[in-house]
């Protein structure tokens, strides 16, 4: 199903990481597209920006941020948004994304994707902020579902309903991170398929996939390993729901060689066409913690 902005399916991309700069510059690998972490390139005029410019000359680029803090009760950082806008123009970014989260208050940034209380007050707050961000950037943004490790007692919304209503009311796009749904489903005990079923397909412009760390009692979204089979199965289910959507493999810690990361991203193609596993094998219900 095409999204309402007709943003293209860019194929299978990977995150642009410093470790891979020499390989990318020297070999110009056949990758469909790259996602660059906005904040890593906004305040540098050195080699990172030089590499990003070369990458943007040859590949489609999407900008992905971690510090917009769209859910914070602090004022929006207009200077940050202006730099983001300039970087998007410089790289001809196909779109710009960040997370449904907040990263700090009282002028502080704890540099974590902190969960929103899922309340009417939060929803109204974020809708207003997303509209203002989009007005300033003069483009729709894609908001990603972040992994979370707690739920608030005051929550009155299911996250997928909150996110969907936010997207409809603020008229923004969605970046659906399949691994994050798996992680949060494990941590909070919901059915990840129910999450995907609750998302409006015409607003989904991108998927994320990544590895994580299972601590037994909870899962941490560490991006330090291969994608596990259960998440791949969930991705296949997402493909059934949303169709062909640009898919990005994130690998941010213990990063292996470029070819390993790229090969992991290309696995996504198999799951778009592979038939569903036989019943009982890798059932997504197995992620429930309770």
């Amino acid at each position, binding site marked *: 199903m095409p999204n309402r902005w007709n943003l293209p399916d860019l194929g299978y991309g990977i995150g642009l990481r410093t470790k891979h700069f020499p390989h990318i510059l020297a070999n110009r690998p056949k990758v469909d597209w790259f996602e660059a972490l906005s*904040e*890593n390139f*906004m*305040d*540098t*005029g*050195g*080699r990172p*920006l*030089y590499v990003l410019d070369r990458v943007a000359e040859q590949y489609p680029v999407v900008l992905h941020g971690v*510090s917009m*803090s769209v859910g*914070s*009760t602090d004022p929006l*950082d207009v200077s*940050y948004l202006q730099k983001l806008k300039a970087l998007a123009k410089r790289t001809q970014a196909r779109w710009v994304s960040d997370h449904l989260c*907040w990263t*700090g*208050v*009282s*002028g*502080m*940034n*704890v*540099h*974590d994707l*902190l969960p*929103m*209380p899922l*309340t009417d*007050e*939060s929803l109204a*707050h974020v809708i207003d902020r997303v509209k203002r961000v989009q007005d300033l950037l003069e483009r729709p943004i894609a908001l990603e579902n972040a992994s979370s*490790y*707690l*739920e*608030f*007692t*005051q*929550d009155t919304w299911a996250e997928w309903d909150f996110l969907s209503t936010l997207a409809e009311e603020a008229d923004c796009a969605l970046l659906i991170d399949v691994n994050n749904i798996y992680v949060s489903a494990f*941590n*909070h*005990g919901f059915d990840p398929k129910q999450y995907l079923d609750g998302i409006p397909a015409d607003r989904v412009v991108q998927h994320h996939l990544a590895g994580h760390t299972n601590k*037994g*009692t*909870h899962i*941490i979204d560490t991006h330090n390993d291969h994608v596990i089979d259960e998440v791949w199965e969930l991705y296949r289910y997402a493909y059934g729901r949303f169709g062909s959507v640009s898919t990005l493999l994130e690998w941010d810690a213990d990063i292996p060689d470029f070819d390993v990361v790229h090969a992991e991203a290309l696995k996504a193609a198999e799951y778009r066409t592979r038939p569903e596993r036989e019943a009982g094998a890798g059932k997504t219900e197995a992620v429930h*913690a*309770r």
Partner: protein
Amino acid sequence: MPDKAGLAPTQHWLQAHIVSPELDDQAASLESEQRVKPSATLTARERADVYRGMYLSRMQEALAADYPVLRDYLGEQMFGSLVADYVQQHPSSSYTLNRLGDHLPAYLKSRDPLHHALATFELAVTEAFDAEQSPVLTASDVMAIPPDQYADVVLDPIPALRLVQVDYPAHRFKQSYRDDRPYPVPEPDETRLVVYRREYQIFWAVLETAAFGLLESLTEGRRLGPAIEHACLHGGADEAQLFAWFQEWVSNGLFQAARVSPETD
């Protein structure tokens, strides 16, 4: 009375729970239970502590990336303690972690002169790494200036240039780190360095006192004539030395432009 369950109070509570160096155990557990749902496997407090537990390790990781020599020299435990103390006074207020360590040299100045020297040098390297790219003044650009105007020339340094003056030879520690060799014995040795970027690579060089003074004058916008006069008078440098230094600096691409500016000074 403010709504304790509102968005802003909730965010302030969680942030305080994450960044506070010490928590009153009983109060933290009680408030966590009021604000956070338990899961099947974790209590409310344990769930809030997941975020708390990751905060300092993230700060350590960010600062270790900018201060690898200091991190290696101190070792994990001492560096961890330093970071924990430092971020209490200088928590991140930027959208990027790249700015987190900007205050570390000043923070260390009164605490430990060697650590201060290492941090000062490493911050200079980081700043040179991230500075804006610029054109570079060439020898032919210099030759194009009429000789009778040399005294009035003002040289604009490249943005990726930093001058460092510290009480220990921080560059030797950096080299040991790079070469995976034992660190030198930490003996005070007043050290002057120029750190710069060329072709997206970082270089540094030790400068004599007079050379450092001259380069400092030039980067501050002083005209060539008065800067040289000052270096000869106070630094004891002769003309041949000055010419050699200047030639080397131009050849290393330390300046981006030269302009005749008779009305400055």
